[in-house]
């Protein structure tokens, strides 16, 4: 039951009706029931994994809380016991995640080793949303361990936090302390929230159905036929794939966030106009925000202040100087974070390289910041001007495009082929000779895609200064309604859906 299927609209409408018509104290039960139904629509065999993960996390949190120190000596012992529970539960959750990520590969490798027919061995079940909910649960366990929040005593309420369906497919990676209290409260119907939520959903559908799925046709075609494409086409497709990924991912976030708003709930923002970023670091503070903050809070910070890293830093300071020593406290944790980030996306080598790529960019920007400042000074570049800011944004965008080229072809060899074509077979004329209209999008659809990207940019620019929904809410009623109807019917008419297309899966659902 994808967000873009007709059945989802029926489901959502029924859920909202039940949510507000039944007694308020039943709202969480309605949400839980709806979330289970939504999850099971993707295959009932996936549910036991989520239940198992939720069970482990819930029990472990309660167990940690029950371990109370009786006195000063037993505080350390209690801490040790809690750590054991934390590590044990964490290991189980990570195992679950690994099973989902590499289970099929492991099974088939074993099958090959034992010379069994690959088709005769059972396949690993791909647990839906496993990357998201395991991270949520790991964060929850860490928060309980560090005393940042109390353990949930009601398993069903905890299950609701884990399985809450708007966020299960593509995130955001919710924090228990942020979402759980909202799920416990009762919510009265608020017309304004309903309207704003609906509007946000519309915007999400526009990004997903009109922009992302349209660009996907061209991107998939070009990258499936690399050998017959010019470098210019490939670069264009890579740029489109960046926009496609953003619209796909953030579109889903908007749909999830908008629907939650209708229910009176708020989800953590996951995007903040990342293509306005002026550096790689800033980019990752605006893109997939909850993943970044999760790694920052639960990997980077613990590593950065860990005794081992401090010891290494000290040693390096003694041998190589203060600057080097200070750099170690950044470089080591960042390296781990980015390797893990790559692995979180996929265990394939191209994603590992992708993680290393971003890690290198961010580390270099951090470590060589003084040199870069000297360079701009040496070149008399005024870094306060608008043109410099635009240059930084464009540069960051292309850094992201390079990252896309590392992942979209599917293999490192494929990525190498693409780079080769871009640098040695560019053929810029192929962008203007009409051949772009034969890349799966005809002339009208290609131009429509460009117009929609412009609309996206314009709205994002406006949004940077003031929320667009707010602007429209304050504007003249005729203009306001015209704008929303234009948005609605542009989805109805231009959206990529219907019998000609299968419900295009959201990209980040695969992680």
């Amino acid at each position, binding site marked *: 039951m994808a967000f873009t*299927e*007709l059945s989802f609209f029926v489901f959502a409408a029924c859920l909202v009706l039940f949510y507000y018509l039944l007694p308020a104290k039943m709202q969480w039960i309605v949400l839980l029931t709806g979330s289970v139904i939504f999850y099971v629509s993707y295959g009932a065999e996936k549910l036991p994994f989520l239940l198992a993960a939720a069970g482990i996390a819930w029990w472990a949190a309660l167990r940690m809380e029950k371990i109370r120190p009786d006195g000063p000596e037993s505080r350390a012992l209690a801490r040790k016991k809690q750590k054991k529970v934390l590590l044990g539960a964490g290991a189980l959750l990570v195992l679950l995640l690994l099973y989902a990520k590499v289970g099929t590969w492991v099974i088939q490798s074993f099958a090959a080793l034992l010379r069994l027919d690959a088709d005769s061995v059972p396949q690993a079940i791909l647990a839906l949303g496993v990357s998201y909910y395991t991270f949520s649960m790991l964060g929850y366990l860490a928060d309980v361990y560090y005393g940042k929040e109390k353990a949930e005593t009601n398993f069903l309420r905890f299950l609701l936090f884990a399985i809450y369906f708007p966020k299960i497919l593509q995130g955001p990676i919710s924090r228990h302390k942020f979402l759980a209290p909202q799920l416990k409260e009762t919510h009265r119907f608020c017309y304004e929230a309903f309207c704003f939520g609906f509007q946000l959903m519309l915007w999400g559908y526009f990004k997903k159905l009109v922009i992302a799925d349209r660009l996907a046709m061209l991107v998939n075609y070009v990258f499936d036929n690399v050998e017959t494409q010019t470098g210019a086409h490939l670069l264009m497709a890579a740029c489109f794939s960046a926009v496609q990924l953003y619209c796909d991912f953030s579109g889903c976030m908007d749909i999830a966030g908008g629907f939650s708003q209708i229910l009176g709930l708020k989800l953590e923002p996951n995007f903040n106009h990342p293509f306005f970023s002026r550096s790689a670091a800033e980019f990752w503070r605006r893109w997939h925000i909850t993943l970044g903050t999760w790694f920052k809070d639960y990997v980077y910070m613990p590593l950065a202040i860990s005794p081992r890293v401090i010891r290494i830093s000290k040693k390096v300071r003694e041998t190589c100087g203060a600057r080097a020593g200070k750099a170690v406290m950044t470089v080591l944790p960042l390296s781990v974070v980015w390797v893990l980030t790559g692995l979180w996306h996929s265990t394939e080598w191209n994603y590992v390289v992708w993680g290393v790529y971003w890690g290198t960019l961010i580390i270099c920007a951090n470590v060589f910041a003084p040199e870069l400042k000297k360079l701009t000074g040496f070149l008399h570049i005024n870094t306060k001007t608008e043109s410099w800011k635009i240059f930084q944004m464009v540069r960051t965008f292309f850094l992201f495009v390079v990252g896309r080229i590392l992942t979209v072809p599917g293999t490192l060899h494929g990525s190498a082929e693409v780079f080769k074509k871009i640098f040695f077979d560019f053929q810029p004329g192929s962008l203007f000779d009409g051949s772009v209209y034969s890349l799966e999008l005809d002339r009208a659809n290609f131009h429509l895609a460009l117009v929609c990207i412009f609309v996206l940019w314009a709205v994002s620019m406006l949004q940077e200064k003031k929320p667009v929904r707010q602007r429209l809410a304050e504007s003249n009623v005729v203009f306001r309604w015209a704008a929303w109807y234009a948005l609605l019917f542009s989805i109805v008419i231009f959206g990529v859906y219907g*019998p000609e297309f299968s419900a295009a899966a959201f990209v980040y659902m695969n992680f």
Partner: protein
Amino acid sequence: MAGSKNRKGMGCFVKSFLAVLIAAAIYMGCYVLFSPVWLEWNNYNTVHGFYKEPENTIETLFLGSSHVVNGITPTELYRDYGLCAYNLGTEQQGVNVSYYWLREAYRLHAESLTTVVFDVSMLRRTASETFVQKGIAGMRLFPGRVQAMYDYYLGPYGTGDLQDVLEQLNPVTAYHTRWNQLTRQDFEKFHLQPTLYSRGYHFVSYSLLDEGNAEEDYEEENAPYLESVLDESVPGEELQDSELYYFDKIVAFCKENDLDLVLVKIPARGWGSNRHNAVQALAEKNDLPFLDYNFPVSGQNLVGETYLVDSHDGNHLNYFGATKVTHAIGDYLVKNCRVTDVRGQQNYAFMEQELADYNKNVVVCSELYLATELEQYLTLAAQNENYVIFLPGKDETSGALHEPLRAALADLGFTKLAQIGWRDSYVGVLDKDGVQEVLEKADTQKEAMLEGAMQNGVRYSVVGAGWSSENFSSCSIDETEYSPNLRGLNIVVYDQSTDTVVDVTNFDTLNTTERMSGYPLQEIETMEAEGKTYQDLTENAQKLYRYMHHVENQEIAGALQGHGGRQELVTWLDAYRQKDRVILLAAQGDAADRLSEPVREALAQRGLTQLAELQPGETYFAVIEKDQKPYEQTEGDGTPLPLEDAIFRMIHAEPGAGDAIEPAGLQLIVYDRIEEAIVAQTSFETFEDPLAVAEREMRNEFQTIFLTPKGKML
């Protein structure tokens, strides 16, 4: 406080209600805009006409594919039998769609419906999803189309996906991707009426011989023939399970609702004994009548011999074929089904208006098609006040316009045409308000032109240019060109009531005021009475004559299948002793051995006296034509016949060279003068002893009859 809260709540409710209302209105606009428009074989008239019928009036329902659409004209069933029938055929209507329409028709005419006539063409294959959609396009959403889509997608042969049902019921979902292909026709779909129509029958007048109007250029080598000789021994073709499933549902529905079900096959290509036998078995299993008009029914071959002119594209009947089939079915229904003559009944008064419209539009159009004389043609066309007649001349238009004709044209209002001179440029437009004409003399070298708008607002532009001017003609109506652009007077007839061009023709008035008929059957039927021979016929009539000859030969051959042996010689002679056929008989002496006395007597009665008295060892040859004394030659000592003075020269040659027949016993060849080909050959092994055959081969020189590679007699 509570009051302001209530007011705020009410305000929100009103705003929401308005918002939903406006969204629904815009969505309905999209619904209409994106509804599929079928340009070819548009079923719009059929379906919308059906829903306009007063409820509980239709008594007989026709279901089936395009063969039915073109093959049954219900208005003539009313005119000639008083039956109230409706033709709910649609293009490529699968058996499942027939079932859906049967349900829908019964829902609205349960009290009157008694008979269902189902054309079995689509039992042989499954209609694609596109044609299922097309077939039910226009069916009312509730409950018919919802039920149909539910059954089609979620039934035993569907995709099983509810999403498909929801998407197909909503054209916006299914067709919104057409946003960049919308044309003016999408906005004019309510006026889309591409053909003349009446109660579901779609009228087509032209035949395959009608150059310029026919959909394909007629090529004799590819002439469409119906397999009109039924062989009941051929195993029946295996029918599709999915089609049988819905067929059974139709049968059960009719039984349940006490409806007479009659199976028919409208004549068309792609149908043969294997399919007939399969459906016949199905009919017998369900105790249903099956009228297969592809083959002779009750001894009558409806259109087999004239399919060339009773079909407009080689696969569907035209008006002339449709009237034959309609009347055959009408005869059957009146004798065998529970149908009533509703003429004169108060609640069927609307049928009289429909008949009047039919006569004015369809019948007049068919008569127009048959008219071969210019004056006759224009007089007929002028009778229909809805017709606008465009006459652009080209090249030379005046040569054949004799004085009486000019006077007649002037009486019709074509005063300037009546005065046209050598190579003058001329255009004329006639409508119910009168005639507009422009005549430019040849020495001015100007073209004649008329532009304007008809009463329905459709714009036209007509240009006629004589030989001294631009030498062309044009007739553009609503930016579509219709003029045949041939020498003489080009005529385009436009019907304002249906927004269609009903006829386009040309009279080469340099030389004649007649045009060749596209339906020359009458010319053939009267040729004997008028003392005409084949060579006297017009080109089209000759084509038809050859076609009919071919069919006759197939029928004779079919009738003779399985016949052989010496006793059958006489049967063959009688069968082929027809006009324009030449029978050649050659024999060797051993032919005489087994010619029995009764056979000899029969041969003698037929004028083959020498053959009747043939003795062993004698060589024999004969040429037999109808109504002529047979030419016979016998060589007593068995030597080859020289035959230089025979009608057909024969060449002696070595065995095995060229087309030859080798006499062993009696050899018979039939040459058809019209087809200019050998149409039958056989031998009668009157001597069957293999030892004697071997002796013969050793002993005899044999005489071979040679023919040119194409079988032409020298």
